[in-house]
């Protein structure tokens, strides 16, 4: 009777389990398809996978390297959102499947069957939703689970020693994840193999691990102790999500959980949790946490970064104007896109500007340094763009972003032999060979560079006289303008800088230079600054034969009228009313920002 009930339970549990796994796969797939675009882009863009022996050798030189290598190989799939979502979802479900197998090995009670299986997979899903969590960590967990499963699956006493004895091989492949395995297996032995054979096994395992560690450190690999202990985890372990530590701890004490669960199979019946309830509970918590973890601003920023990488300038402008970014990098990308479209002084205030000149060029700190490269590239300071891209390559390895800038800047500077080396590298990748083919045509072919729509334009922006770059971009802009007075991009950046600093007088005094730059009209925001200047009863300097458009004059009259009409209202109300009709003008920025 008891066994009949048990088998029915197992049967019904299996259905619930399969349904839960299918649901988990579905949740994961939908989440990453819907929200994973920016995340996949960010991770795929972090490094380039090269199909070369040298690239493989780099990873073979340290324990755990092959795990990262495999992860990087798979991460190429993130190029496609669909493939990335499928890949991550499959890994999550596979991880769960490993626990199903382990659970089966112990015939644990129905109370915990679902719970113990779903928790690790859900933790993995939560980790994958975070930007600093990489697929090779999941592979590490997956392999650890498999290795543990193999270690406990052998009924033959002698063969049961094989997997623990092969620890050095496992350590070489998985690096620091091998220590989770050690913890897991020791817990297993302590819980299930009590007695002298068990303790002997523990001592043996610790000895093998210790010898492996010493041999790796002193003989086989030129790696410091810290690297041998923690690689392939990041140098700064605080970058890992909390769920990483939770899962590691969970895996280590997992055999103990098994033991406790086993004890319930014949224990108190009152404590039975319904499998369906367990599954619902875990899934609900996971979904809630996924929603909580989702950072909309960051996702938007990643979307902007993707558009910058793909040079979809119009989409950046549209995104920021319809859904303004509150992030300095987001606003920086908007200004960059405006500059690339020649609209910086026409539309600057159509988008949100919260950071003054800080959103025109970014400070050279940590993550921002990689982003700052685009500013220099846009204004034609190719040496500085190259400098930043090169430094990024030295510190973090090749990425699609830095190699693209390196190739372009070397082609623009006529350093074809250096560009050729980068192109050789790029041709060894999966997704960027087509890009390499485009640039390859320009090698040793200056006329091809000149005739390229983007590169040809950039060549016109290059400095004509030498100067040293400084830490101050305001100064760099002036130096660049002196070096190439025809560079409209840098001129507009200068004007944007003055506008954002509300220095409208200085703006007015720069207008006369525009004639030589072949402007046919005064850009909108510059006209707005001139109107403020005139309104201040200042003597208007020579504007280089330019005239203010009637439309701007009329708008300014309307603005002043609205200003006068509403100025008695409370400040928030006043602000709101003015923003509605005049939020995209320099006048509003001057008065209310």
């Amino acid at each position, binding site marked *: 009777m008891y066994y009949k009930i048990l088998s029915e339970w197992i049967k019904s549990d299996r259905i619930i389990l399969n349904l839960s796994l299918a649901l988990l796969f579905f949740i994961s797939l939908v989440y990453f398809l819907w929200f994973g675009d920016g995340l996949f882009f960010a991770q795929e863009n972090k490094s380039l996978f090269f199909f070369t022996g040298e690239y493989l050798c780099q990873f073979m030189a340290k324990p755990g390297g092959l795990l990262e290598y495999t992860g990087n190989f798979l991460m190429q799939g993130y190029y496609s959102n669909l493939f990335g979502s499928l890949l991550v979802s499959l890994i999550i479900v596979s991880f769960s499947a490993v626990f199903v197998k382990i659970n089966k090995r112990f015939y644990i009670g129905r109370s915990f069957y679902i719970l113990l299986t779903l928790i690790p997979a859900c933790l993995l899903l939560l980790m994958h939703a975070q930007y600093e969590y990489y697929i090779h960590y999941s592979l590490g967990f997956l392999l650890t689970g498999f290795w543990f499963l193999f270690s406990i699956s052998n009924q033959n006493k002698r063969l049961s020693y094989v997997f623990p004895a092969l620890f050095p091989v496992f350590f070489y492949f998985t690096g620091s994840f091998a220590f989770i395995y050690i913890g897991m297996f020791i817990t297993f032995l302590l819980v299930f193999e009590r007695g002298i054979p068990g303790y002997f096994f523990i001592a043996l395992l610790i000895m093998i691990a210790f010898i492996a560690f010493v041999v790796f450190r002193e003989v086989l690999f030129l790696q410091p102790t810290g690297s041998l202990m923690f690689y392939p985890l990041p140098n700064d372990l605080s970058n890992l999500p909390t769920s990483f530590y939770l899962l590691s701890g969970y895996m280590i004490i997992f055999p103990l959980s098994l033991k406790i669960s086993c004890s319930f199979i014949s224990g108190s019946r009152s404590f039975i949790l319904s499998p369906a309830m367990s599954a619902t509970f875990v899934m609900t918590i996971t979904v809630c946490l996924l929603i909580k973890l989702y950072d909309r601003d960051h996702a938007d920023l990643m979307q902007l970064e993707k558009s910058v990488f793909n040079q979809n300038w119009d989409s950046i402008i549209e995104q920021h104007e319809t859904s303004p970014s509150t992030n300095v990098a987001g606003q920086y990308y908007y200004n960059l896109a405006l500059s690339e479209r020649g609209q910086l002084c026409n539309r600057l205030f159509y988008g949100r500007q919260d950071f003054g000149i800080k959103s025109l060029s970014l400070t050279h700190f940590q993550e921002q340094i990689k982003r700052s490269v685009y500013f220099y590239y846009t204004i034609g300071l190719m040496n500085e763009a190259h400098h930043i891209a090169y430094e990024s390559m030295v*510190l973090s390895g090749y990425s699609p972003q830095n190699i693209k800038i390196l190739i372009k800047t070397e082609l623009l500077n006529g350093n074809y032999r250096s560009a050729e*080396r980068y192109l050789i590298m790029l041709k060894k990748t999966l997704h960027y060979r087509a890009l390499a083919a485009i640039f390859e045509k320009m090698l040793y072919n200056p006329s091809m560079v000149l005739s390229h729509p983007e590169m040809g334009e950039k060549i016109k922006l290059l400095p004509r006289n030498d100067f040293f770059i400084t830490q101050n971009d305001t100064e760099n802009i002036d130096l*660049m303008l002196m070096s190439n007075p025809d560079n409209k991009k840098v001129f507009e950046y200068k004007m944007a800088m003055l506008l954002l600093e509300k220095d409208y007088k200085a703006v007015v005094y720069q207008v006369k230079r525009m004639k030589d730059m072949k402007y046919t009209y005064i850009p909108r925001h510059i006209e707005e600054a001139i109107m403020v200047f005139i309104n201040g009863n200042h003597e208007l300097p020579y504007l280089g034969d330019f005239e203010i458009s009637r439309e701007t004059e009329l708008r300014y009259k309307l603005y002043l009228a609205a200003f006068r009409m509403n100025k008695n209202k409370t400040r928030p109300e006043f602000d709101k009313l003015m923003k509605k009709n005049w939020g995209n003008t320099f006048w509003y920025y001057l008065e209310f920002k």
Partner: protein
Amino acid sequence: MKLTKIFGATEALFILIFIISGCKPDGYIDIQHLWREPVIEPDYSGVTIPVNIAPLNFIIKEDGVSFTIKARSSNSSDLKIKSKDGVVSFPVKSWKKLLKENQGQRIEIDILSEDNYGKVIEYDPVYMHVANEPIDPYLCYRLLYPGYESWKEMKIVQRSLENFHESSLFENQLLDDNCVNCHTFKQNDPGRFLLHVRGSKWGTYFVDDNEITRRTLRTEEMSANAVYPSWHPGGRYVVFSSNEVVQAFHMISGKKNEVYDQSSMLVIYDCNRNEISNIEETDTVKYMETFPCWSPCGNYLYYCRAKQIKKGFDYRNIKYDLVRKSFDQNLKVFGNAEIVFNAIEINRSVSFPRISPDGKYLVLTLHDYGTFSIWHKEADLYLLNLENGEIDLMDLNSAETESYHSWSSNGRWLVFSSKRGDGLTARPYFAYFGSPENIGKPFVLPQETPEFYKRFDKTFNIPEFVTGKIKIGPRDFARSSRKKSIKAVWSGSEK
């Protein structure tokens, strides 16, 4: 009778085929001769090589689906290789035999290419001259990205010049990823050298017969670190320049980095007494002094000297002369500075003076201005005859940078950094030095995979010959870094 005739005819046919194949190389019948040498990479055509050098593998940059390469000489049997992709890799053993049998002679390399239709092209042979004098068996250099400010991986390696074996001497990941630089040997001695480590494992690591001593040479009296060293041949003293270095970045195309000194002085370190002192300057003019180099006899210290820069200086006006001071080894006393080569007079600047082991010649780098010639495209090597003061541009230069250089222990080989490959990364090139009139065409350090330089994106920095294998390794330096550094004592004049 009939059978005899058949045999006779067959025999005649074989003889005919034999004669034809004997007339044409490798049995090819339709051969077109191109009256030029094939393009090979690296360019090893016409080079002078030492008898003990590793195989000079190369790639044939000509069209063809199969290539036949035959290295031949009057003194030995032919060494024949077939290649489908144009990559030519000589077997080490056969190569060594070939060179040994042709010491002082020349080797001729015949190359034939065959296309898909069986058309064969024969080129003019490529020649290599095998010198009588061997090269030092090891080369030591630092590998790093030719970058700007940042570094991550950095290592110093020793490479056997007789084969392709390379092993690490120092790897910075074992020392907190710190920067390592200025490995300097006492007259090519693998057992006696020093190097600097910056950052958390700070110090100058002196190696003396497998013993590493970590020392702190900078004292309160010094305004900057000890940087460029030169060992006195006696082994007791090391002279360093102590430089305050500034880095700036050019914005014009064709230039990248500018590194210059704001101030620099020479200091002498006594290894026996752990004392460091300044080298007194009697001249009232204040100078910047750098790149010390002892003469092989130890009686002269050569170095580069420029007037101290002042506020508002133009970096393009910083120019260094080559000067020297006499040195009394017993009293540890220096004489007055005398100009050996007045570079300022010709509006140029000197760096890296290196004297041949026989003391007769000095090779220096000459460039337009400043002190950091590796970023100067115009930098070239010049040979100064120390006996008559004549200076000449060396034939081994290229349109790109030639910079750091050093002599082999027998004075017959020069190794120098050249960026002629891609204008960015420096590679070690070797040149035979018979006399000022007899300098061999240089060749790049041979690699097992000849495409190596096309892909390898790091630069070879400070190539130095070593007369044997260095026995210590990265772990020894890591262990030494955990020991306390011994601080040098200042024994010079007050600041």
